[in-house]
């Protein structure tokens, strides 16, 4: 075999060089069941033969839908083995979204995890003219389905083995015939602005960044990885497909999403990737548990937390940590940091990453302080995931690190970040205009993010380029920066900040139902629903206090003066956030225009009618009158010394 340059070629090579090593490990029936590399290849080969027997071939598209499961990887690799293209989709997508993607990508085969997903696909069948075959993994509840396009996973593999007996070497020939620049994956972007776009990626797009990343981070075959992210997120494809096949570590699959925490503890992954949302949730949970603990335990928690953060701050500034603090930190390791890491399942974790969206600086510092090597990475679907990572010794919350080897960054005059690398995608599927807009003639990708490169060569991302605005007095405002500050409060779930071309900054807040509910219980505040809870004056006061705290860390001009506690959570089904939980700022601003207007015309309250989309696609209106809270600024602007330069350089320069 020549050098392996495609994902299926790597799989075959691994199956030959380390046939008995565990490639995948899935918790099933309460036991971790390993799949060796040779079995991985056999499963992929048999399925590929079955697909070939059903007429699937080069250029055809196969979609997978469901939780992170080994069989969905078999399916993606089987499609790629035949020269086809894998199109993973979000399993919680509502029908119209799903229909759009499956139709746009001209999917001919769908591999679905279970009855729930099969039902969704069959309901859309009429709208999917290219669909020929639906394969299901879990047969439960599907035995009586009579639809002829529905086949079981085992059934297709069985037919494949028969086809293979008649056509020896069929898949092997197809695998070897493929080249590094052949398309293999369409990753549909979650689209903060418009309809999802199909990002076309070739094998080399995924493999070269994966290789550069592994080299920079020292990822090796003995590493343990837990695959639990949404299948459709490019970060998942990069880690659990490209990096996994390239390096040959073990990929573990939790039993089900609810058991993730326990399964993480059982596996003890040595590396992990999680979007900011998960880190924020984990921190919130830790804070709630600490608040619920006995006074002594809470005291111990608070004390050692302060010790850790103080030591961390000194380390970050490059100053030595005093002996006393070091001693206390060693004690803290025994009493707090070690146990917390253990509870999170990160006791053995060497490196963990946050990426996909910015993480609040305070959340970031907390996890670093308790000894988790949390680092920021930066990338985009159009870059096949990653282009930069922070080196171990130069980690701070403001940057997204150094470019990986072979990748270049350039800042446009407008402040937009441009990246050139082997990861730059092959264009949007069936959208040549959008593709031409996204990539310059000499191969630079316009990321749409505003940022700059600091003295050490680290890339700093400020916000989405088009979101950076100016208040009417000319001071720069990066809404995301303020929002992340707000979200550090355990009581604030999501926040959207306004202020572009306005006299001051205002925010719409969605409370965190779990923590505010918990707070309400502790304060004997009865409530019935999220809507009721969010409308309580006590809750508005609570949020006001949190905003005041947050304001202390903000430059005077960008302090929040008015806010409103929304009577619902931001929801991807309502198009307010993306499936990867990024706020769709424009959409929110339009949808809640009445609130924004009320912020600036000084009204004490506002009549809001919010539309809610149920999971089955039905819509309903939620009408209510919401009060606006005011935050008075206790200190006159001039008296405040800005503690740290706010990330204003782009707009200021």
């Amino acid at each position, binding site marked *: 075999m020549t050098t392996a340059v495609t994902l299926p070629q790597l799989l075959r090579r691994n199956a030959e060089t380390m046939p008995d090593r565990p490639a995948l490990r899935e918790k*099933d*029936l*309460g*036991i971790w069941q390993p799949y060796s590399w040779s079995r991985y290849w056999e499963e992929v080969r048999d399925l590929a033969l079955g697909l070939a027997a059903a007429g699937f071939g080069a250029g055809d598209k196969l979609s997978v839908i469901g939780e992170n499961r080994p069989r969905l990887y078999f399916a993606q690799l089987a499609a790629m083995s035949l020269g086809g293209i894998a199109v993973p989709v979000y399993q919680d997508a509502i029908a119209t979204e799903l229909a759009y993607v499956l139709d746009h990508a001209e999917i001919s085969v769908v591999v679905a995890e279970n009855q729930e997903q099969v039902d969704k696909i069959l309901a859309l069948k009429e709208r999917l003219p290219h669909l020929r075959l639906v394969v299901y993994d879990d047969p*439960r*509840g599907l*035995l*009586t389905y009579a639809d002829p396009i529905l086949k079981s996973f085992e059934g297709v593999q069985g037919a494949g083995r028969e086809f293979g007996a008649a056509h020896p070497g069929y898949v092997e020939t197809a695998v070897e015939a493929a080249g590094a620049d052949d398309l293999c994956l369409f990753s549909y972007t979650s689209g903060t602005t418009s309809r999802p776009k199909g990002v076309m990626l070739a094998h080399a797009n995924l493999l070269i960044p994966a290789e550069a990343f592994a080299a920079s981070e020292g990822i090796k075959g003995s590493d343990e990885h837990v695959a639990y992210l949404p299948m459709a997120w490019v970060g998942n494809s990069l880690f659990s497909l490209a990096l996994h096949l390239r390096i040959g570590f073990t990929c573990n699959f939790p*039993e*089900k999403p*609810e*058991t993730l925490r*326990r399964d993480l503890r059982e596996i003890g992954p040595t590396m992990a990737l999680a979007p900011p949302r998960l880190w924020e949730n984990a921190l919130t949970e830790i804070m709630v548990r600490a608040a619920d603990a006995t006074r002594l335990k809470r005291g111990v928690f608070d004390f050692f937390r302060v010790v850790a953060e103080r030591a961390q701050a000194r380390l970050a500034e490059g100053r030595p940590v005093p002996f006393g603090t070091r001693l206390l930190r060693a004690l803290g390791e025994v009493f707090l940091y070690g146990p917390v890491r253990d509870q999170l399942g990160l006791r053995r974790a060497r490196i963990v990453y946050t990426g996909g969206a910015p993480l609040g600086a305070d959340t970031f510092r907390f996890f670093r302080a308790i000894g988790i090597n949390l680092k920021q990475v930066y990338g985009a679907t159009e870059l096949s995931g990653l282009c930069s990572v922070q080196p171990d010794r130069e980690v701070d919350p403001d940057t997204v690190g150094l470019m990986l080897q072979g990748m270049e960054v350039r800042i446009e005059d407008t402040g937009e970040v441009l990246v050139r690398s082997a990861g730059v995608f092959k264009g949007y599927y069936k959208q040549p205009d959008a593709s031409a807009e996204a990539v310059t003639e000499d191969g630079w990708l316009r990321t749409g993010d505003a940022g700059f490169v600091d003295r050490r060569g680290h890339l700093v991302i400020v916000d989405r380029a088009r979101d950076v605005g100016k208040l009417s007095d000319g001071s720069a405002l990066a809404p995301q920066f303020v929002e992340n500050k707000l979200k550090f409060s355990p009581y604030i779930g999501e926040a959207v900040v306004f202020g572009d071309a306005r006299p001051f900054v205002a925010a719409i807040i969605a409370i965190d139902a779990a923590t505010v509910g918990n707070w309400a219980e502790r304060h004997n505040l009865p409530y019935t629903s999220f809507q009721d809870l969010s409308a309580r004056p006590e809750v508005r006061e609570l949020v006001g206090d949190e905003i005041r705290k947050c304001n202390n860390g903000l430059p005077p001009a960008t302090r929040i003066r008015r806010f409103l506690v929304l009577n619902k959570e931001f929801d991807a089904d309502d198009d307010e956030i993306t499936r990867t939980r990024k706020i769709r700022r424009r959409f929110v601003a339009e949808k809640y225009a009445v609130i924004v207007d009320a912020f600036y015309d000084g009204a004490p309250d506002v009549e809001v009618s919010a539309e809610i989309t149920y999971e089955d696609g039905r819509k309903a209106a939620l009408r209510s009158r919401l009060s606006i809270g005011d935050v008075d600024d206790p200190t006159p602007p001039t008296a405040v010394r800005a503690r740290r330069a706010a990330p204003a350089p782009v707009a200021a320069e």
Partner: protein
Amino acid sequence: MALGATKGSAETPDGVLLAAAAVSKRFGGVRAVEEVSITVRRGGITSIIGPNGAGKTSLLNMISGFYRPDGGTITFEGADITDKRPAQIAALGIARTFQNIALFGGMTVLDNIMLGRHVRMKSGVLSSFIYWGLAQKEEVAHRARVEELIDFLELQDLRKELTSALPYGLRKRVELGRALALEPKLLLLDEPMGGMNQEEKEDIARYVLDVNEQWGTTIILIEHDMAVVMDISERVAVLDRGRKIAEGTPAEVQCDPHVIHAYLGGHHEEEWAA
């Protein structure tokens, strides 16, 4: 539903799994059940409905051996089981759940379901205590079966939780798991959806259908939610004041004037039909 018929093994000639012939039960002067006869086809889902106090649970108690009938006979797979004790009946392959949950609150979900395997365990106290050789092998085999049920009922995240700490709907599900652990041929469900909200009811209805479909288990169901009963049953028997007043397919029963009368007490035919 067109299933079940092929799934049983020892098929009686007419496909009847259980037959109660003119069974009666009196408590002092109260005639709880009076000469009720029903036949249950192998592989089907039969529902027993009726107003409160109609004798539904008493009938179930006679089938499972908790009550001894004052008259009539009950046959299971052709053999008379009228006078058998509950443990013997369980060993024959009839499992049940209770209207009021009967779990061991101090035990985990896993242990509660393991308990359901008890009648199928052969090792004695001593060998189980030493836990070596056959006893160990047996325990592993039973645990494997229980894990399948945990997977089936989606209880993976609750394996090691004490059942007393679980919400009502989940405890009902654990109880169903324990009954299934017996690998019953006939499953008696006494109001499995009582006190549940719509979503929980739909969940349980799905499990009941899946049990029936996947293992061909015959099911007798007592339930008050008419929508569910009419949706998933193959046959429905209606009891009123201890007597059977109607039996048939859901559609037949819905149109039966006796049933309408028993439920609505008079001239509300159009409402019921709607």
